[in-house]
């Protein structure tokens, strides 16, 4: 029997790609990729039934390495590609991995409208509080006062909470975890995949190279330890006051609601429209009018 890590390495990674991967030593993207692969393995999905799409950014490199149907799309537009794939082939499990800049800056509108539409897809957003790939500019999730290459005197704007944004925009399932809580993260991703409807998984990750270094947060080890200290489970967070929750990371399932899924609703529209078209064609034949295509 293959051991767990062996299964992930042997079955799910593309060995014709260059390993070790491009991410910096200690980058959380690799931990998220591992959790995602284990979650998919545990969900019992066939590799050919899974689609992994991504935008541009460090996180966008993930589909390159994994052996599913993959597509590396343009910056911010990954969800639009996923939407098209899901509508054309509703039987596929469509996952989209994005960075925080990818999902909430350039792709912000796509993100909130994908949530509002409630397609049956899963979005995994790796939130490392910065634009990692392009050299550490501030992103919509860079905390107030943080330094970045575009906020050298400290950031003057306020940050988005991606998970709360998703809840408000109407996603069916929203969860948050961190790269420290890798097992929790795996469980949350599994729930997000299993959920019918638009699921959003926000993963708090470390970019110690661009964000950590500029803000004296230390290296990968210190940043990931910080997530451990700052994390609070939702059940506990509900009993805490707003002041106590300042600078804390609430982890767990933040929203889980049932509502009609637009991919299924589209199928209903397709079926009804087909029926109607057939009826019209039959009536025309009965009345002696030849069908256009004949």
């Amino acid at each position, binding site marked *: 029997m293959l051991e767990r890590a062996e299964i*992930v390495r042997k079955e799910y990674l593309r060995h014709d790609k260059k390993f*070790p991967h491009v991410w*910096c030593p200690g980058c959380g993207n690799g931990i998220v990729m591992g959790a995602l692969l284990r979650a998919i393995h545990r969900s019992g999905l066939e590799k050919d039934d899974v689609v992994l799409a991504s935008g541009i950014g460090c996180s966008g490199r993930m589909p390159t390495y994994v052996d599913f149907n993959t597509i590396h799309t343009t910056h911010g537009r990954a969800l639009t590609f996923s939407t098209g794939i899901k509508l054309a082939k509703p039987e596929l499990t469509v996952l989209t991995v994005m960075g925080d800049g990818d999902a909430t800056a350039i792709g912000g509108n796509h993100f909130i409208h994908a949530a509002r539409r409630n397609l049956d897809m899963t979005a995994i957003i790796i939130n490392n509080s910065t634009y990692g790939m392009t050299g550490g500019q501030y992103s919509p999730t860079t905390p107030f006062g943080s330094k970045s290459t575009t906020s050298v005197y400290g950031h003057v704007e306020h940050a988005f909470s991606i998970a709360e944004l998703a809840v408000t925009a109407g996603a069916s399932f929203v969860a948050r975890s961190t790269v420290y809580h890798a*097992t929790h993260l795996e469980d949350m991703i599994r729930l997000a995949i299993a959920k019918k409807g638009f699921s959003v998984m926000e993963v708090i990750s470390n970019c110690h190279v661009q964000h950590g270094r500029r803000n004296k947060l230390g290296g990968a080890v210190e940043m990931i*330890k910080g997530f451990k200290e700052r994390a609070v489970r939702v059940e506990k967070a509900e009993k805490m006051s707003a002041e106590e929750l300042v600078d804390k990371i609430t982890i767990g399932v933040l929203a889980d609601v049932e509502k009609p899924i637009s991919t299924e609703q589209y199928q209903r529209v397709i079926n009804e429209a087909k029926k109607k078209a057939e009826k019209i064609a039959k009536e025309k034949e009965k009345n002696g009018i030849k069908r256009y295509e004949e």
Partner: protein
Amino acid sequence: MVHDTKSRPAAKPEVGENKTASAPSTAQQKKRKLHRVTFYYKWCKSCGLCSAFCVKQIIQTDKNGLPFIANDDMDRCTGCRFCEIHCPDFAITIQNKYPERRHSDDRQ
């Protein structure tokens, strides 16, 4: 990435002190589940996460930052897999009850 793996220091002496506590007697060994940790050095980037987070603190690093477990310490591994799932580079494998527990340190 080229690592000078041959010239790594021998297992640190402080670890030897743990020997009495760490090397269980044969009777104890039979009761406890044993594990073998293997590092895949071709993919390891010496990030230091595994050595920082190991619950038993048995993972050491050599002067190139490559992780290794001294042979005496291997039996103290609880098999929690924390290091395995937190290695961003898929470079650690934990095996249960490996029959002839070989060395964890097969870098040469």
